[in-house]
């Protein structure tokens, strides 16, 4: 089977600070990959490179049938090309980034209507179906400010799904939530995994990673230090750095 996502030789620095050193990674269709590691290890930057919110300095990225090369001799993708590519990669942010001037329904409709030029009526029923899927049918016509963090994040997942993306990228989707609200968001992600969505999840929820992810990648200092099946990497890490990192979580099971 051809991998859904293929990344090779990816490098990124911000000025003198090198954030990604040499990232090689592939994700099979329907696979769920969890990216774990200490803060500053480059997890978020890697995720943001995959949908071109951050332009890598060099390397290759392929998602589905779109591929891009970066570095000397290759031209970075044009603005419209970037936009078209991003429309098929869903991204969920730590701070939700819902559009506060739109209702929940309008938030979810925004992508299909303004990017895909979908007729309004069709977008409404699509948005309603997706909001039902994330359990928010009763919040369709409210503004995001009135929602709890967990509800906001579920709306933002619905908003991404409305574009019918080939892959979903989660950037610490539960890090800004109160502990009692984490479960409802993880529940939605679990459901997507069961449906066969290809996903890369940056997370600090180690037990969730073990449960939902097929593979776990441990990153440190801009490198993937260790990777493998979730149970092995989390249950029986080989690298010292992974062991040290995971030891902080043992109290939480």
């Amino acid at each position, binding site marked *: 089977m051809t991998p859904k996502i293929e990344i090779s030789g990816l490098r990124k620095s911000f000025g003198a600070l090198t954030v990604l050193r040499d990232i090689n990674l592939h994700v099979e269709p329907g696979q769920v990959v969890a990216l774990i590691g200490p803060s500053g290890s480059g997890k978020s930057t890697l995720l943001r490179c995959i949908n071109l919110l951050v332009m890598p300095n060099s390397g290759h990225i392929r998602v589905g049938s779109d591929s891009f090369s970066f570095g000397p001799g290759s031209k970075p993708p044009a*603005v419209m090309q970037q936009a078209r590519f991003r429309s098929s990669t869903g991204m969920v942010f730590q701070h939700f980034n819902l559009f506060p001037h739109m209702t929940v329904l309008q938030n979810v409709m925004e992508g299909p209507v303004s990017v895909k030029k979908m007729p309004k009526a069709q977008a409404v029923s699509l948005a309603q179906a997706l909001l039902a899927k994330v359990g928010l049918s009763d919040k369709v016509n409210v503004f995001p400010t009135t929602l709890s963090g967990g509800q906001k994040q579920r709306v933002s997942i619905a908003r991404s799904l409305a574009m019918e993306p080939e892959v979903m990228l989660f950037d610490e989707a539960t890090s800004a939530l109160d502990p009692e609200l984490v479960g409802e968001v993880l529940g939605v992600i679990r459901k997507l995994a069961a449906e066969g969505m290809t996903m890369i999840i940056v997370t600090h929820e180690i037990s969730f990673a073990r449960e939902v992810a097929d593979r776990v990648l441990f990153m440190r200092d801009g490198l993937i230090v260790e990777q493998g099946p979730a149970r092995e990497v989390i249950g029986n890490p080989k690298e010292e750095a992974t062991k040290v990192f995971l030891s902080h979580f043992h109290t939480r099971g």
Partner: protein
Amino acid sequence: MYQWHFDIVWSYRWLFLNGTAITVGLTISVVFLGLLVGLVAGIAQLSHSAAARWSSWLYIEMFRLTPLLVLLLWVYYALPIMTGIKLDALTSAVMTLTLYGGSFYAEIIRAGIVSIDRGQSEAGLALGMPPGSVMRRIVLPQAIKRMIPPLMNQSIIQFKNTSLVSVLAVPDLLYQGQLVAMETYRALEVYTMIAIIYFIVLLPLTVVVKRAENHLAQSN
């Protein structure tokens, strides 16, 4: 003790009314045109193109840091000599006030746009929206709400600024008043009346600004 004779003002009421109409009309035109100029210059400040950034910066600072009276006189008297293009007084006045107001509007608009959290544009981009749509559909609708009170304040200042066009003999409220004062030797009554008219026209506007500010404070 000075004897006030406001009845003289009353006998010139049509001239005052006419001057007020011209002042209001002039303000409406320069506010509208100034907002267009300010929007372009404000967005140019945030452009990827260095040329757009530099030229808009140069324009904004040139007009922001020069007294309006000096600009008005310069455009009317010096510009024709430098370029050979002679503009009539009203055109010079509208152009100068537009560019002057535009430079302040540009700063308000730029500040409003950058005050919107970066995550908002990122979320728009992540949906596959091109940067232009992100600006139009996501950033500007939120930014404009924040810009409205300072833009209205600036427009109130602009209303008062129009009084300076009287130096170019544009027949605004102040100019008409000066004519009346010269004819009647009743300068104190005339200038008191002019001050009152400016005050009366602007008072309702300040109430609207206050309301807008309160509304904004609540919705945040």
